């Protein structure tokens, strides 16, 4: 590092501390990120990120660069830092980092936070501890290896002197940061693997947690918006004067479509003294829209077309072995077609953001999963450099993939720019439901063969769904080979296989919904496997064991073994094979996604159309679990979300526009729908930790559908099974 960049670094650190209201007298430690995590643009000016700060009184601040949306990452990662730092967690305050390269990649999705950030964060803590220990050794004139840290204090093995962390910060600041600090061994962990209390829950239960929708600044105005209902449509006319005549209305702002992947679809916003006035004025605008090219999108017909597209030969994207031979020599052959609808994320906090666009600066406060995405999008919109857009990352009231996209932030910026004041834009629930980046609707057709020895020998899999790539590139009109990898690389490792992509041009914006494509892949593959086991006359768990045992693919041995691990565990937990009362059934599903492995067993009772889930057992292999209670909560949440999407929720389009509007016609799961019992077990914790935000979602629906079949003989192949 050159002298100049060192100076810059020092200045930046002072500014950083000042902005955070901290004194420059304490000890501050950066995290060095592996080169693989640094983007090309982050070369020369890259600075250590994710600071740890210890004040002279010992109070410790740890910044979390990843976004918090309820998954607990802002506890799990800082607790790992505190562990390596030998900090007393009760002395630690966690702050959410603003958008800043020094925190490393902040985009929070793909269940990737722990995967990417755990090691660098642990190293930051360990480096800090080594500096504090070295400082104590220096002051005592003792060798470093005679000194050790424990809970915010450094001790030595020679005499009974001790020094508190706060007393050491001055000296420790002068000690160079060790490049390769020694990490703890697992037996030394104090917080990792323990149920450390989340840092943010205390504020939540008294209403003090500040979400994106809650941000206030002096002179704040409030906005409400109506969007163009059909993607690609336009605003034809509206009665601006009637709104402007209302007391409290500041302005009516026409927002044209901003053709960036995360830009607004276009609409009309009203800015007023409060949200209610803005909503009232908006209702009086009598907006007329032009539908445009997607005006005939109708999901009932579209899904029928997807089914046709997968029940006929489609575009071959992957092939191995000889499917014809396998099918020709089959003792049992079976086929099935599986369908799923669009889903809306519907977080309890609808899209909301505060923007303040000024000539010389732009400041954003938003619930978000992707602060850099906001900088890029708002920078493009205002024709400014991304780094000139200040983004304060607020707590998200749920996100589930939706808050990766920042159309609502760009709209708030458009309002602020128009009225020259800070503007808080809160979408209504109706706008949230109808202006999404939806989970793909889908159709899949599977055909497979089983030979005389009961081995699955061939697998034909066709999938058609509007792909997320279409949001970024309209030329994408069907799943790509990459989109199909979850099938072509599926850990069943079937020797003869063909994977085909069916046409599915998108007519709405498609986005990442918690677990993404794994939802429909996990559903189709697990339900089909259950059907195939029945066709072959073999118990489903035994049938699955045989598949994994028969997997000879050298690259899939670890995957197959870990799938087997969760399968065996959940079979044991659920008492698989036990006698069930009449109308009761057990169903099972296994899925590997986002580097983790989940098996679920659902115990259901079916009386006519009435489906009651009595119990869900979950066996999870995500390697080392950082915080067992938060991890368990993630699985419980996945079970609830999985149940809702399996039973009831689907977004439908007619004439290009979303039909659903609020929770009455998008009936997410309510309290009474929650399974009476959810059990979660984590296995194989010796392995490297992987993420858990998403992998729990895909297994619930297929395990439920398989359980319903076991209980009633009725086989569902489409989700949701009881559409509203």
């Amino acid at each position, binding site marked *: 590092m050159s002298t100049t960049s060192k100076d810059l670094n020092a200045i930046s650190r002072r500014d950083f501390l000042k902005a955070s209201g901290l004194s420059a007298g304490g000890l501050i430690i950066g995290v060095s990120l592996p080169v693989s995590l640094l983007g090309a643009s982050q070369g020369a000016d890259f600075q250590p990120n994710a600071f740890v700060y210890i004040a002279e009184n010992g109070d410790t601040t740890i910044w979390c660069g990843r976004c918090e*949306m*309820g*998954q607990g990452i802002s506890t799990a990662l800082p607790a790992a830092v505190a562990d390596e730092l030998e900090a007393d967690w009760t002395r630690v305050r966690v702050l959410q980092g603003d958008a800043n390269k020094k925190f490393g990649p902040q985009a929070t999705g793909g269940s990737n936070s722990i995967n990417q950030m755990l090691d660098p964060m642990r190293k930051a803590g360990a480096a800090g501890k080594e500096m504090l220990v070295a400082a104590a050794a220096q002051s005592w004139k003792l060798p470093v290896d005679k000194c050790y840290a424990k809970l915010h204090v450094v001790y030595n093995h020679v005499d009974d002197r001790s020094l508190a962390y706060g007393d050491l910060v001055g000296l420790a600041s002068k000690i160079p940061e060790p490049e390769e600090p020694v990490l703890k061994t697992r037996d030394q962990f104090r917080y990792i693997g323990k*149920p450390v*209390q*989340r840092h*943010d*829950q*205390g*504020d*939540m*239960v*008294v*209403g*003090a*947690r*500040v*979400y994106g*929708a*809650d941000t*206030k600044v002096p002179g704040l105005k409030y906005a409400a918006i109506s969007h163009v209902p059909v993607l690609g449509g336009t605003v034809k006319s509206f009665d601006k004067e009637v709104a402007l005549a209302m007391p409290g209305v500041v302005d009516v702002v026409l927002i044209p479509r901003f053709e960036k992947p995360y830009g607004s679809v276009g609409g009309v916003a009203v800015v007023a*003294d*409060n*949200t*209610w*006035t803005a909503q009232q004025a908006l209702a009086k605008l009598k907006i007329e829209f032009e539908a445009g090219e997607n005006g005939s999108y109708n999901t009932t017909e579209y899904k029928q077309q997807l089914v046709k597209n997968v029940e006929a030969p489609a575009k071959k994207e992957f092939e191995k072995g000889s499917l014809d031979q396998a099918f020709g020599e089959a003792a049992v052959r079976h086929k099935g077609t599986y369908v799923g609808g669009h889903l809306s994320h*519907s*977080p*309890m*906090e*609808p899209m909301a953001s505060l923007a303040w666009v000024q000539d010389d600066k732009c400041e954003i406060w938003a619930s978000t999963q992707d602060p850099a995405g906001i900088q890029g999008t708002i920078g493009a919109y205002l024709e400014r450099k991304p780094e000139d857009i200040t983004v304060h990352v607020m*707590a*998200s*009231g*749920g*996100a*589930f993939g939706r808050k990766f996209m920042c159309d609502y932030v760009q709209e708030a910026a458009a309002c602020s720019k128009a009225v020259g004041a800070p503007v808080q834009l*809160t979408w*209504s*629930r109706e706008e949230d439901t109808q202006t999404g980046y939806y989970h793909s609707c889908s159709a899949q057709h599977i055909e497979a063969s089983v030979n005389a020895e009961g081995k699955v020998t061939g697998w034909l899999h066709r999938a058609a769904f509007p792909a997320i790539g279409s949001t970024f590139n309209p030329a994408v009109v069907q799943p790509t080979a990459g989109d199909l990898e979850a099938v072509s690389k599926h850990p069943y490792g079937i020797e003869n296989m063909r994977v085909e992509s069916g046409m599915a041009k998108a007519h709405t914006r498609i986005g990442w919904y918690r677990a993404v494509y794994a939802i429909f892949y996990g559903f189709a593959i697990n339900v089909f496997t259950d059907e195939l086991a029945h066709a072959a006359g073999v118990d489903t768990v035994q049938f699955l064991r045989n598949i994994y045992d028969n997997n000879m693919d050298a690259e899939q041995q670890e995957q197959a073994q870990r799938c087997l691990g969760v399968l065996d565990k959940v079979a044991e937990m659920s008492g698989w094979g036990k006698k069930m009362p009449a109308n009761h059934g057990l169903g099972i599903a296994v899925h590997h996604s986002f580097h983790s492995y989940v098996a679920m067993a659902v115990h259901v009772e079916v009386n006519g159309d009435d489906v009651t889930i009595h119990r869900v057992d979950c066996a999870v292999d995500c390697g080392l679990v950082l915080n067992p*209670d*938060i991890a368990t*909560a*993630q699985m*419980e*949440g*996945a*079970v*609830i*979300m999985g149940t809702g999407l399996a039973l009831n929720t689907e977004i439908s389009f007619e004439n290009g526009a979303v039909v659903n509007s*609020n*929770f*009455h016609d998008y009936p*997410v*799961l*309510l*309290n*009474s729908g*929650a*399974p009476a019992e959810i059990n979660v077990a984590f296995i194989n914790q010796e392995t490297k930790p992987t993420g858990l935000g998403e992998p729990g979602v895909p297994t619930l629906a297929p395990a439920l559908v398989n359980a319903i079949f076991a209980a009633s003989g009725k086989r569902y192949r489409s989700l949701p099974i009881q559409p509203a």
Partner: protein
Amino acid sequence: MSYTITINGQVHKTDVDGNMPLLWFLRDTLELTGTKYGCGIGLCGSCTVHVDGRAMRSCLMTVKASAGKKVTTIEGLSENGRHPLQIAWLSNNVPQCGYCQPGQIMTAAELLAKNPDPSTEEITTALEGNICRCGTYKRINMAVADAAKQMKGA
């Protein structure tokens, strides 16, 4: 026209439009943002407050209708956040994103005030109108039962 509402023990006099929902008066005028907007039509319970001791959806209750009444929001439920429900919410690690939890707690507080010993079914029924997308229902119900136990013992 001016309205007088007592909120968390403090008397507020206001001349906002009487048709404004209490929710937006709390959030935008008083900047008491613990009460959340979730659906605007009384389906999700995120905006639940107590009006003269009854759990009400503040998105459906106007300022006019609240005049002369005593309103309690999550901020005023207890001194220092020590209501047995708030304690139980923490000991059960209920919240994930936490956005719906003020509404859940306010609904549960009314339940326990009326029915100190609710059955599992009564808890579920009382909270049926409070949506949580993170899926914390199981823990919510455990926390309500814990708080009930705690309050009986106290």
